């Protein structure tokens, strides 16, 4: 990400509209709408996949057909018509094997608008980036630098070709195809995503980053990410998402699987800014995502998320603390404004001894939005001395929004220590007047209060992302207090 100055930030604050709502006119190849076995086969063929992968997809498709869309979340929306969506769309001008110099200039212009000019990325040398537009990964930078350390970072479609043994060994082991409705759908039709493998003992020298963008209308995006940190390795991974403003509801159903082997650590950060719909609640992305990580002995997984976009969010990044002494963390800021609905949280499954988990969730609701935290802390019978600390804070703006907390605790071992704290507060007129009196206008006052409220989580993000996230919080809440 390019550096944002305070001035940029002020400039941004003037724009009331969804900032990433442009559509780039690049020629693309889109499959006919609808979903059946032939489409699944066609996607697999398009990707030149080996037989086992095609079979895996078809199996997932079968499972999906037998499943029903879940409705236990605290969200209301018109269920998508899965036969009205195109399941594959690729910017045509791009051949993933070409270098960046060959990339469609329109596409490069789009990256510029996204604030992630690849040229800049090259210079910045701190972030290696993969960009998935619609269904295809278009550029992976820094392959060479990473290659020297034995780190594999590439589109998952390429990984299936080049490292089938790794993909085959791990895909679907953390989020099985039949895990849930959207995961099954994703398994059948995912078209791209990122793959990352960090070898034993290697500390990845830079942040790895994927930028997802839905560009075409009438399509869904189903990306699949697989991160494997081998014994004693470390990686920090970032993902960002944007989509054009459209009246329709676009479906995004991703699956992310993390595997942290003994003594490994994965830090996974997300800034989710899919189009949230307009102020009347029309349009916006349905964000139904399954993210889960497995920790082996002494391993650690941290999920950090800043969720400001999407019309409906359904997302519970989770940790399976299988190994003894493993650690799971979940730090989340979820902002909802206008008619947005978010039902998000985490699951911490303690299986090993001395496992520890921390959950910090900050929900900010404005407008007529609904914001729910849903979290499960489960302690297995063999998990001696498991520890959990959860803190869920809600901040309300105005009287028409809602904040809800659904903490579930299942402790099957007497030695477990589980702490849960929750607060709900409102941005008060007195707070705003206090700021006003010091010369700070109301918009800035809200930004200040919200940033203060979110600080514990913002601090967990890598630097470049923290600045962007802070800016997003401000934009998302503009005009929310009259």
């Amino acid at each position, binding site marked *: 990400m390019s550096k944002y100055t305070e001035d940029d930030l002020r400039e941004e604050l003037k724009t009331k509209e969804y900032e990433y709502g442009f559509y780039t006119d690049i020629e693309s190849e889109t499959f006919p709408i609808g979903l059946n076995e032939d489409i699944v086969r066609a996607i697999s063929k398009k990707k030149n996949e080996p037989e086992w992968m095609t079979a895996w997809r078809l199996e997932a498709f079968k499972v999906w057909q037998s499943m029903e869309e879940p409705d236990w979340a605290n969200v209301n929306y018109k269920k998508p018509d899965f036969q009205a969506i195109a399941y594959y769309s690729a910017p045509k001008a791009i051949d993933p094997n070409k270098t960046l110099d060959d990339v469609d200039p329109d596409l490069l212009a789009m990256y510029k608008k996204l604030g992630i000019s690849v040229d800049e990325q090259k210079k910045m040398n701190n972030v290696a980036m993969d960009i998935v537009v619609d269904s295809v990964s278009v550029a992976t930078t820094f392959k060479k630098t990473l290659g020297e350390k034995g780190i594999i970072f590439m589109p998952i479609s390429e990984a299936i070709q080049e490292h089938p043994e790794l993909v085959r060994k791990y895909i679907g082991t953390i989020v099985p195809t039949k895990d849930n409705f959207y995961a099954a759908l994703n398994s059948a039709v995912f078209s791209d995503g990122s793959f990352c493998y960090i070898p034993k003992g290697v500390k990845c020298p830079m942040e790895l980053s994927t930028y997802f963008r839905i560009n075409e209308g009438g399509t869904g995006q189903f990306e699949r990410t697989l991160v494997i940190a081998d014994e004693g390795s470390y990686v920090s991974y970032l993902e960002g998402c944007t989509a054009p403003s459209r009246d329709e509801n676009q479906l995004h159903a991703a699956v992310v699987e993390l595997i942290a082997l003994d003594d490994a650590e994965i830090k996974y950060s997300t800034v989710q800014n899919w189009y949230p719909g307009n102020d009347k609640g029309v349009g916006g992305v349905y964000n139904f995502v399954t993210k889960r990580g497995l920790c082996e002995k002494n391993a650690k997984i941290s999920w950090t998320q800043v969720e400001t976009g999407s019309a409906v969010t359904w997302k519970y990044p989770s940790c399976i603390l299988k190994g003894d002494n493993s650690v799971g963390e979940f730090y989340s800021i979820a902002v909802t404004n206008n008619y947005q609905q978010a039902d998000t949280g985490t699951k911490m499954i303690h299986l090993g001894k001395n496992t520890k988990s921390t959950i910090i969730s900050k929900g900010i609701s404005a407008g007529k939005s609904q914001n729910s935290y849903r979290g499960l802390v489960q302690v297995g019978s063999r998990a001696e001395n498991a520890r959990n600390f959860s803190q869920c804070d809600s901040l309300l703006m105005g009287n028409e929004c809602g904040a809800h907390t659904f903490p579930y605790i299942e402790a099957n071992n007497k030695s477990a220590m589980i702490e849960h704290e929750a607060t709900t507060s409102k941005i008060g007129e*007195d707070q705003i007047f206090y700021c006003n009196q010091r*010369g700070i206008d109301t918009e*800035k006052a809200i930004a*200040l209060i919200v940033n*203060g409220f979110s600080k514990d989580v913002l601090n967990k993000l890598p630097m470049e992302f923290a600045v962007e996230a802070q800016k997003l919080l401000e934009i998302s809440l503009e005009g929310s207090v009259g």
Partner: protein
Amino acid sequence: MLQIKDLHASVEDKPILRGINLEVKAGEVHAIMGPNGSGKSTLASVIAGKEEYEVEKGEILLNGEDLEDLAAEERAHKGIFLSFQYPVEIPGVSVTNFIKTAINSTRKAKGLADMPAKDMLKMIREKSEMLEIDRKFLSRSLNVGFSGGEKKRNEIFQMAMLEPKLAILDETDSGLDIDALRIVANGVNKLKSKDNAVVLITHYQRLLDYIKPDFVHVLYNGRIVKSGGPELAHELEEKGYDWIKEEVDA
């Protein structure tokens, strides 16, 4: 500097200020005293531009300019500062970050660029030393878990940083022990000049021992019912407010 003419203000249709007249000139210190509930804090809030309060009649002029159409932050940009009787908490926002934002907002309103970080730090160091504020205090969340005295000292720290033209201190002395009172009063005295003015709202003579007022006013039931020199404060200290109430209500 400040002229208030026949000011009437109400909240939720309940009249609170019922015809206030007050003139404060540059270089002057005015004390406003009066029993609880008489409208002192309301007057301060109305001058500062709190929207909850409806100004029904009268006007407030700052250096000849009618403040009616100015939002609270615009009044602040023009140099009005209010030290709150009950400062609010803002979790997660440090004292330093808050004052930095305040200063740069005011500079921006005046068409100036942000204050360079170096100058900001220097100023913060100077002013916090003057008020004997510990550096660690500056990184704490604004007013969260502050003692009464710390809150008030923090208000005066902000005043020192913002260098207002007109400072209204609403019961800044309450909650301060004698040492803190001396430090705060010294701070205010150092900031006083012939170009700015101070309005002290207080119950007690003891603050006025440190900050000498030129005029003392008694506010009762939404009106200034008595004005005089510093001797009036002594009289109130001795006799309380009952004799004034009797005089007015008679």
